[in-house]
């Protein structure tokens, strides 16, 4: 009977996996709710606020997609995922889209059968240490204990960085950002490493952020973006173009505040297409005319979302840097909507 139990367990996992596969758009519409995989708790990107509602840079993209597809930004169910559980949650159909600081890599795109539809944050891996450690460069970390989130690309970069600089370290592998931060704060490790944006967000949530410094070295490329399952191209298009609509809105100066006014007065054909006043872009991917207008109206364009959650006016205080629009020397570039 041992064999049967074994196969039973094996199949039980896959029965669950197979059910919610093709036609994500139809599933979401039928359900009347978008299920969005988000971070368990990374301030600024995706974390519950004092009332328990999820807020953040990534969360606003979830809301924009829900507004585009369902017409209501509140119809989102947030599923908190850790570095370890996120891809399983997406592959099994537990979430419709994963917007959780996930790095676009070759093997995730091909072998794991996912599609990274866009890059909503260009990032790189850095190190945070306590000021009184007296370290000013990551290359001085020889012999240090480093806290690291398991199941991430940062784990592999860390090993490569120390190896190429011919220095040693002791890894402490923990399951998610908040636990890693707790260990770092308690002094269980000398340094904490993750994406630089994550470091800034974590630092802001520490008791006295001024006692911690982020070292200047950025040791990797970390393009973070929303992820969908491979094979459902229409759903991927919806998430991708919702994001590009937010980006185009910033480029064209359409904001949450002026969207109605612009819509009634604009003569710019691209803005007209963006806001669904001309042509029928939405129908091409199974949505209505006003999809993008609703998406932008939720929390504004890309720049507004950035400034509201992680920009220089927030405690996290990240500059736009690589994430400025291409017109301002950054890498954020949306293909034309036509």
């Amino acid at each position: 009977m041992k064999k049967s139990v074994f196969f039973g367990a094996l199949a039980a996992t896959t029965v669950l996996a197979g059910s919610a596969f093709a036609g994500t758009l139809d599933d979401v519409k039928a359900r009347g709710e978008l299920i969005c995989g988000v971070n368990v708790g990374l301030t600024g990107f995706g974390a519950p606020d004092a009332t328990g509602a999820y807020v953040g840079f990534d969360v606003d993209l979830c809301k924009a997609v829900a507004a585009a597809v369902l017409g209501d930004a509140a119809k989102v169910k947030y599923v908190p995922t850790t570095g370890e559980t996120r891809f399983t949650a997406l592959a099994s159909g537990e979430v419709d889209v994963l917007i959780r600081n996930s790095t676009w890599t070759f093997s995730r795109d091909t072998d794991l059968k996912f599609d990274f539809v866009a890059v909503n944050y260009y990032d790189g891996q850095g190190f945070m240490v306590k000021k009184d450690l007296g370290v000013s460069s990551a290359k001085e970390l020889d012999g240090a204990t480093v806290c690291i989130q398991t199941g991430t690309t940062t784990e592999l970069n860390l090993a490569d960085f120390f190896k190429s600089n011919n220095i040693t370290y002791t890894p402490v592998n923990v399951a998610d950002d908040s636990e890693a931060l707790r260990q770092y704060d308690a002094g269980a490790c000398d340094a904490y490493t993750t994406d630089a944006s994550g470091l800034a967000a974590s630092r802001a949530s520490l008791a006295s952020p001024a006692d911690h410094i982020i070292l200047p070295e950025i040791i990797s490329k970390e393009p973070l973006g929303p992820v969908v399952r491979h094979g459902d191209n229409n759903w991927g298009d919806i998430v991708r173009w919702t994001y590009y609509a937010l980006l185009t809105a910033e480029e064209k100066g359409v904001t949450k505040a002026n969207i109605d006014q612009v819509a009634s007065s604009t003569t710019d054909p691209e803005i007209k297409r963006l806001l669904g006043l001309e042509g029928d872009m939405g129908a091409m991917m199974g949505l209505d005319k006003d999809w993008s207008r609703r998406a932008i109206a939720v929390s504004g364009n890309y720049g507004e979302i950035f400034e509201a959650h992680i920009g220089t006016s927030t405690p996290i205080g990240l500059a736009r840097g690589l994430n400025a629009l291409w017109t301002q020397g950054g890498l954020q570039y949306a293909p034309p909507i036509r």
Partner: protein
Amino acid sequence: MTLATEPPKANFRLGMLIYDTRYRSYTIQIIVLILFLLGVAWLANNTIENLAAKDKDINFGFLWNRAGYDIDQHLVPYTNDSTHFQALLVGLCNTLLVAVIGCFLSTILGVTIGVLRLSKNWLLSRMMTVYIELFRNVPVVLWIILVYAVLSETRPEPKDFKIVDGTSKASMILNDSFAITNRGTNVPSPLLEHPLPRIELGGYSLNLSVLACIFVVAASIWINRILRRRAAATQEATGIRPTTWWKSLLILFVPIIALLFAMGLHWDYPAFKGFNFKGGLNVAHAFTALTVALTLYYASVIAETVRAGIQAISKGQSEAAAALGLRPGRTMNLVILPQALRVIIPPLISQYLSLTKDTSLGLAVSYLDLRGTLGGITLNQTGRELECMTLMMLIYLIISLIISSVMNAYNASVKLKER
């Protein structure tokens, strides 16, 4: 003239498969077997179809790719250039290390507590009752987290051991050889001045020095057993047991000490340098917490098993032993425990199995055992959930089957021999 009458030949009818008791049980068994096989086929087919729908296959090739991640505690050689399979081995060794140490310590502690709980000393037996009830009635994972939290929150950081102007905030214990920080326990590690050469064996290097030590200790124990058997034979024949204790001591300790002396054993003491302690051996708190918590928890369960075993032995046995003039200690060792073992061992097997499987709770404190490497990091980095999980279940199954077959063999050797 006799009429040869043939016995009426029973024509086989299809209905007999149900109504004839000779065939009915076969019919039922065959039907159940067919249904069972259909079920298995359906599950297997479902798995394959669903994987195909997701454009995935079952492929264990990833085990030979570079792992790329580091593991702090590794008993076999491992770097981030090693393969996922070697990471699996590292995890397996870490699992077995906790399991073996945990089973060993919890047996010693459990037997002691179980015997003490039956003590006539009121205070002692009540204290043991409190211990057992406390540990066995709280989930073991909470004990693991508690031990870990106590170690990591109450101990000073390594930098507090740094000597500034002749003093430091925290100090090492036992003549400056041990340091317990909030990260781990730093203990001296043995070093050899003239170690034996290592043997390269198919990519793995065998440490001959360790093998030599194990061999010498095993040989000493074996010779000592021969000595004791001889002594017992003399006692049977003449009634006088020859003095053996000093011979035993000589046989057990002199060879290993001589060997270690010849190889030039000395200790490498940990010392604070840079960020952390350098030198010596760093035992991470994840390991300590897991081992201590599992030991304490399973000791309470084993203690109850031992108590049940002892109480199953009739009171007349100890009374008879007392009448023969045996002291209580010898009564326990020679009369009660050997009989009680027959009752104790079958449930003890399942306790060992549970302990071994519970080592996977190390994930609560980030201990990189088999679940942490194969079922954690490797699974995440390669995205091969089905393969990793299947392999992991298979390995735990094999470990459990080995433990239970070894223990069953031991059980067979102590059970009542009916002649």
